[in-house]
């Protein structure tokens, strides 16, 4: 293992090395480096004007701050100083020696420039460094075409400043920090290896970037996973926690100006949701626009989007977490359904009871838009096509665990968690029933989902209006009013509301939940004509017609005493 790591580290792909290490951590500055120019004779260096020297030295620093990978190495010019080289004064002086080259710095005809870092042995923090340029033995130039006996100052400063910020030589031949650089003014710019070095030692600033080639559109949804993804971002400017898990990144260009809801669902670990400015196709962790804060629950951020603007949506793992997920955008038309999400695996025919189980099914949907509770169990999805116009009633019985029943629109053969038509969420093993107004020829998705991870066998039956499918064909007793017990146990075992004997002259009540108390002549709670019938376990006062489904769901308290 160690040999493998060493071999990797010494490869050309990562050839750089720090100047020294303390307990495994590299020599580096902590905070901004302030450097000063020694000026004792009225100029920095008699061979060049001060501005040229200052520019060359400053550029030699800036090349490290401007690394394409966004290094956090920061420097500033602190003005002139009369103090020269001394490792004991914390001046950070850059001095051109023109009179006498000091002993201990190498030969006057050999050493061109020297850096003398001073650092703490405890944490390897560099807190002082001086640079001495040998103007006794060498002539420095800033010309792009160094001539006879000239030494390119900026190339030297770029290299020496690499040492200044804590780097040793690289074994990558093209690197500025390669011990025998390639010539001319080539070392004024950084090689990839130099950039890797400075960005590893000084991460931050505009931060490590995460790039993604995936795209999500407005009112779109996708399934994805962060498992096996790259982990390039550890912190975000808009969050105060670490995100050491791998990321998944989606590019999103809004088609609307206004709030766009971005939703992250289907999590089985603690992923967080971030939206950042687009930085040339990458995320920018320092320009974080919004973030979600939930733990393993669904995440949602509201992005104040501008039409035509591209953003980066990043799903990142807290504490190293990784998970599959579903990501949706709602620009006004509502988020779509990820392809293959909650796909139907069976067909439910009217009047043909069927039995099954949700065991082994996928857990693609953990929250329907019409429900206020998590449905973290696996789903079993049936496709049901209405044979004619009229109310359809679905009954779910024979439960040995807490399954719930949903009916949604058909999203290309899959359920639509945001297209909920009806739901029934009774507690425990109580039977569930959903009635809704079907339209001839339209396919609906009947979803049996497990509350809080529940798995159970079930019996499922659909009663449909007359048409190609034959409505209530299993209920000949419906015409036998005197024998109808009116308790919802007739015929198909349920009061389906279309049975005139079930109600007493009121409009058909598709929300009849099939309980004995149901044939009370009252409309079921939360029945919305033409919309959804949301049954409750305990009945309750009839709501006002026209309440929206969402309002109904929000006001409905989910199983307060049924929590295991």
């Amino acid at each position, binding site marked *: 293992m160690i040999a493998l790591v060493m071999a990797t580290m010494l490869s050309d792909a990562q050839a750089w090395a720090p100047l020294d290490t303390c307990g495994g951590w590299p020599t580096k500055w902590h905070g901004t480096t302030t450097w000063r120019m020694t000026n004792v004779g009225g100029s920095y260096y008699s061979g060049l004007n001060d501005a040229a020297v200052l520019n060359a030295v400053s550029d030699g620093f800036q090349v490290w701050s401007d690394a394409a990978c966004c290094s956090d190495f920061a420097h500033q010019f602190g003005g002139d100083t009369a103090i020269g080289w001394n490792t004991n004064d914390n001046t950070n002086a850059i001095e051109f020696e023109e009179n006498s080259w000091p002993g201990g710095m190498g030969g006057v005809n050999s050493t*061109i420039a020297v850096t003398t870092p001073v650092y*703490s042995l405890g944490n390897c923090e560099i807190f002082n460094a001086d640079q001495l340029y040998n103007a006794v033995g060498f002539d420095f130039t800033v010309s792009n075409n160094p001539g006879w006996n000239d030494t390119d100052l900026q190339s030297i400063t770029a290299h020496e400043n690499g040492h200044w910020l804590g780097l040793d030589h690289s074994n990558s031949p093209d690197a500025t920090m390669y011990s025998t650089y390639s010539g001319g003014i080539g070392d004024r710019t950084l090689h990839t290896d130099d950039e890797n070095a400075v960005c590893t030692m000084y991460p931050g600033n505009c931060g490590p970037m995460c790039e993604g080639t995936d795209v999500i559109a407005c009112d779109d949804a996708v399934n994805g996973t962060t498992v096996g993804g790259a982990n390039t971002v550890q912190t975000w400017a808009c969050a105060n926690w670490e995100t050491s898990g791998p990321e998944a990144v989606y590019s999103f260009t809004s088609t609307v100006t206004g709030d766009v809801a971005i939703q992250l669902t289907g999590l089985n670990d603690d992923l967080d949701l971030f939206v950042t400015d687009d930085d040339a196709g990458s995320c920018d962790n320092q320009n974080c626009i919004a973030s979600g804060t939930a733990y393993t629950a669904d995440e949602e951020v509201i992005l104040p989007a501008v039409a035509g603007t591209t953003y980066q949506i990043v799903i990142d793992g807290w504490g190293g977490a990784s998970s599959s997920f579903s990501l949706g955008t709602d620009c006004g038309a509502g988020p779509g359904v990820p392809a293959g999400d909650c796909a139907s695996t069976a067909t439910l025919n009217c009047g043909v009871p069927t039995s099954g189980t949700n065991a082994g099914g996928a857990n693609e949907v953990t929250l329907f838009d019409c429900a206020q509770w998590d449905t973290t169990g696996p789903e079993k999805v049936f496709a049901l096509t209405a044979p004619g116009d009229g109310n359809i009633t679905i009954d779910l019985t024979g439960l040995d665990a807490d399954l719930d029943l949903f009916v949604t629109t058909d999203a290309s053969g899959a359920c639509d968690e945001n297209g909920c038509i009806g739901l029934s969420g009774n507690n425990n093993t109580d039977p569930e029933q959903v009635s809704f107004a079907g339209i001839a020829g339209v396919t609906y998705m009947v979803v049996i989902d497990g509350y809080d991870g529940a798995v159970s066998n079930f019996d499922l039956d659909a009663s449909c209006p007359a048409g190609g499918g034959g409505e209530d064909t299993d209920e000949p007793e419906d015409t036998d009013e005197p024998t109808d017990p009116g308790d919802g146990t007739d015929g198909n075992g349920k009061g389906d509301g279309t049975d005139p004997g079930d109600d007493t002259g009121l409009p058909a009540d598709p929300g009849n939940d099939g309980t004995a108390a149901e044939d009370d002549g009252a409309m079921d709670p939360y029945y919305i004509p033409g919309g959804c019938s949301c049954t409750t376990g305990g009945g309750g006062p009839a709501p006002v017609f026209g309440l929206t489904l969402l309002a109904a769901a929000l006001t409905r308290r989910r199983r307060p005493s049924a929590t295991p």
Partner: protein
Amino acid sequence: MLRRLLLSVALMTAFPAMATSVVALDIVEQAGESTAIVDAIVGHSIEVVDEDTGQGYTDTTLHIHSNVAGTAPEQIRIRQIKGERPDGTRFFVVGDAEVEEGERIVAFIRKYPDGFWYFTALNQSVWHVADRGRDPRVTRSFDGLEMYRRTERGVLPANESPQNFDTLSQLLSELHGLPCEGAR
């Protein structure tokens, strides 16, 4: 955690070399910059501080086995700008030679007007005589040195490899009698 571990391992296995920008000197050029070329045993080191400037140094005793060229006393102290201060800090000249007490070296040395001896050209000036059983090697390290050459197009980078020898006698025969002019 794994990333941190890998980084730590990587840093601990990093090259130990230091660095500075120097013109490569061949042995004749370096002799011309030197007072003597000596075959010596490295002795004890002490750290000293210049009371006037506060600048610290490390003075290392060299026990001269023989003068290969030029003349040096039987025992000298080589001064280097490096050290560890009582406040727990370390300083050094990037690219300077590192010698260990007890090791045998062959070195170009120069006496400066301040009265102290220095290695003539940092790491370029020291061959380390390593006794590896029956296969001794005499090696010089350019670790940390950015090498240049003076050319007709100016001072340009140069690919320089340190010249090593299989035996000490081979090195000494190369160096013997070179004109040391650094004392003039």
